[in-house]
């Protein structure tokens, strides 16, 4: 299957190679997170003053000064910055200015809902996208392909808030089979997960289709066919497997998007996830909470990317050598 020249050199360096990759990636990740943390700190401070938002507009300047001092926002910017950086390694993000609670507590309380929604959306996306992409590839250029691709195009170009509202109107208001919004049982998960998955379905299905078309045109598929294997067997054991590599990359990126990009979906379905928390934090100029959420998103993305890179080594032995 793979070219013999590559498979000869792969075996001895495999273990240490992976370790070196991991160490390099982790160090890079730390640098990336440092820059993200710094940018978050300064950018959010450019955007406005939380004291003005916490107090009603008729507060006096003296009342503002008192509150500013008690929140520690009157200290020099550099002091605040160093304090903040100093807390990061210990995961101390400070207290939320608005909720008057440790930021880590506020944030962690929301992680389960976000993970739950992202995982469900990913399952929905894969379940829909893989058959759709494979089907379109096999039916390339025919009505089935055009139909699937048209559906995918619509899915990719429809905003989540619209899909969400339409689903709510159909399944909650008209049919009354699913709850319109909120968080709780499994039924609450279905509509937001489908809404969130729509975009990912489109991305994954399109990529799988083109990747499959490449693979299906290759010599080993023809050989497999010549051996008399069934189309299904060829698609699943040869086509899918070899078409998977670029798809895995995109799925990895989609996981990052699903974890961080659920803001509109969470808003429409009143889902208590991190996206909605972050929007509120930004609206409130809740500096510590914004900083921590931005770091959370960045860290998630970095970790997912690292996992994707590592997954290559499993899926494609050639990668071990080149790295």
């Amino acid at each position, binding site marked *: 299957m793979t070219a013999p020249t590559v498979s000869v050199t792969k075996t001895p360096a495999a273990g240490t190679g992976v370790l070196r990759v991991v160490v390099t990636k982790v160090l890079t990740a730390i640098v990336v997170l440092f820059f993200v943390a710094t940018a978050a700190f300064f950018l959010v401070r450019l955007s*406005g003053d939380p004291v003005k*938002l916490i107090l*009603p507009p008729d507060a*006096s300047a003296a009342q503002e000064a008192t509150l500013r001092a008690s929140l520690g926002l009157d200290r020099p910017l550099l002091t605040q910055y160093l304090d903040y950086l100093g807390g990061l390694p210990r995961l101390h993000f400070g207290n939320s200015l608005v909720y008057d609670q440790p930021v880590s507590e506020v944030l962690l309380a929301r992680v389960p809902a976000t993970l739950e929604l992202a995982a469900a959306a990913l399952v929905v996306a894969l379940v829909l996208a893989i058959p759709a992409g494979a089907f379109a590839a096999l039916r390339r250029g025919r009505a089935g392909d055009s139909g699937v691709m048209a559906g995918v195009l619509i899915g990719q170009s429809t905003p989540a808030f619209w899909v969400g509202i339409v689903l709510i109107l159909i399944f909650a208001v008209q049919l009354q089979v699913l709850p319109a919004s909120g*968080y709780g049982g499994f039924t609450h998960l279905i509509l937001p997960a489908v809404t969130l998955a729509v975009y990912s379905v489109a991305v994954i299905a399109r990529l799988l289709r083109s990747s499959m078309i490449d693979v299906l045109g290759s010599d080993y598929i023809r050989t497999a066919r010549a051996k008399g294997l069934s*189309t*299904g067997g060829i698609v699943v054991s040869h086509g899918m497997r070899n078409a998977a590599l670029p798809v895995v990359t995109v799925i990895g990126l989609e996981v990052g998007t699903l974890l961080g990009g659920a803001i509109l979906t969470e808003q429409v379905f009143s889902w208590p996830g991190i996206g909605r928390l972050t929007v509120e934090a930004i609206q409130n100029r809740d500096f510590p909470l914004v900083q921590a959420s931005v770091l959370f998103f960045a860290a998630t993305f970095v970790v997912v990317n690292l996992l994707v890179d590592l997954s290559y080594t499993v899926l494609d032995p050639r990668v071990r050598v080149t790295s």
Partner: protein
Amino acid sequence: MAPPRSRLTRRDALRLGGLALPALALPGLLAGCGSADGSVGSVLRVAQTSDPKTLDPQKQGDLTSMNVLTNLFDTLTTRGPDNQLAPGLALSWISPDPLTWRFKLRPGVRFHNGEPCDAKAVAFSINRLLDPATKSPIVELRYVKQAVVVDELTVDLRCSQPDPIIPAKVSLFGGVAVPPGYLKQVGSAGFAKHPVGTGPFTFVEFQRDHQMRMRANPGYWAGRPSFDELVFLPMPDPSSALASLQSNEVDIVASLTPDAALQIQGYTGVAIRNYPGIRTSYLSLDTTAGPLRDVRVRQALNHAVDVPLLIKAVLDGKAREVPTMFPRESFGFDPSITPYSRDVGLAKRLLADAGFPNGFDTSLTAQTGDSNIAEAISGLLAKAGVRARVNLVDTGTYTSRLTSNNRSALGPIYLAASTGWTLDAESLVQSNVRHDRRQSRWSSPEADRLIDAEELTVGPAGRQRAFTALQSLLKQEAPFVFLYQIDNIYAVNTRPRWQPGVVGVLGMANAQVTS
């Protein structure tokens, strides 16, 4: 040789489908075992745009938070169905001298944990609020120096300068009583996690951005609420909140805008209810610069903005025109002062007299949520030749600029609104009229004198005289364009019977729920 065309046979398609089917069916199967909400008895579910910021009533200062907390906590005074001040934790109040307000407390009131709510508890509460360490955003008790226990059921609030409307100010945020013993036991953080008040409902559970559940307090001094459980649901998106109402997951959707309410007009089983409200909108004019320095120009703008048309066309009729800054229900409102006549011709003549026969260019700043109103006002001004470019900013930016030291930070004209929940005209002109207040862009010694008179006089007759004179002066000098007081708008299903007061606070103790 041409590559063989891959063919998907029917068998293969079925196989692929077979892979997908179990996964698709899974949600349906699990939906069957979806949990019931586990609550007992009758429940009232209320949706508003967001959750309380914190459950510590002394660490929040916004009506959205107070809407929830008012069901857990009582305040010294309250508002009756007629919107008049009524006894709450205090039965009566007097001002023995201009710097003191004395409250006689209701005997026998207890916190949910059994602690007595006596003078000690009330004084503790006020003093906790005033303590800078509490970091309270509640600002209206700015002249209260401290609360002092007189006897077991009497508390004095000592002020640094006279404040005639202390009794109105303790009808919400500042008037809440918190339990001293419990706070000592669990600390502020513990209190915010599991709040204990004296109110008609007791705390059950709070999951931020999901739900806040409360149960009827059987020992409530005014009698147990007639239903068992009260749930507040935060729903930021009005469309999905209204869908939840239609699919029977919510009973009341509060704080709707007129255009959001239009979405479900005509559906069966749900109704839009609008009640008189006091949130009052106006345009602030920078009278210190440009064409707006001329009183004729400012009057012209007032004649040009056709407020009744604005209400009809943009607010679906769900607002009332105001003559000046004051809503009708506020103490100090004088019905003898009438709104400006709406007359574009007159506006043009006034502009020409002031030297602007061809009008002038300016800008109108508003928050993004008010874009439709701002655009409509800009259109009305254009009819008189005033070309006001609409400049939209988000709430955070708007607020920061509104209270910044640069009084023209929001440009020559901006759209503002305030909810004078004290129902006293003082609150509407507290920060924007007297020349030395931060949002004032007008200098008038006469206005300053009248503000001092109404703020420092305790007797109502003298204050009313000052307010009447102030309204005449405001109308004459037009440092603002006076607009409207908007209704409180709710969407409800057929279950609840409840009517809000003009302030629009979501106190649910007297609501009825039919099953």
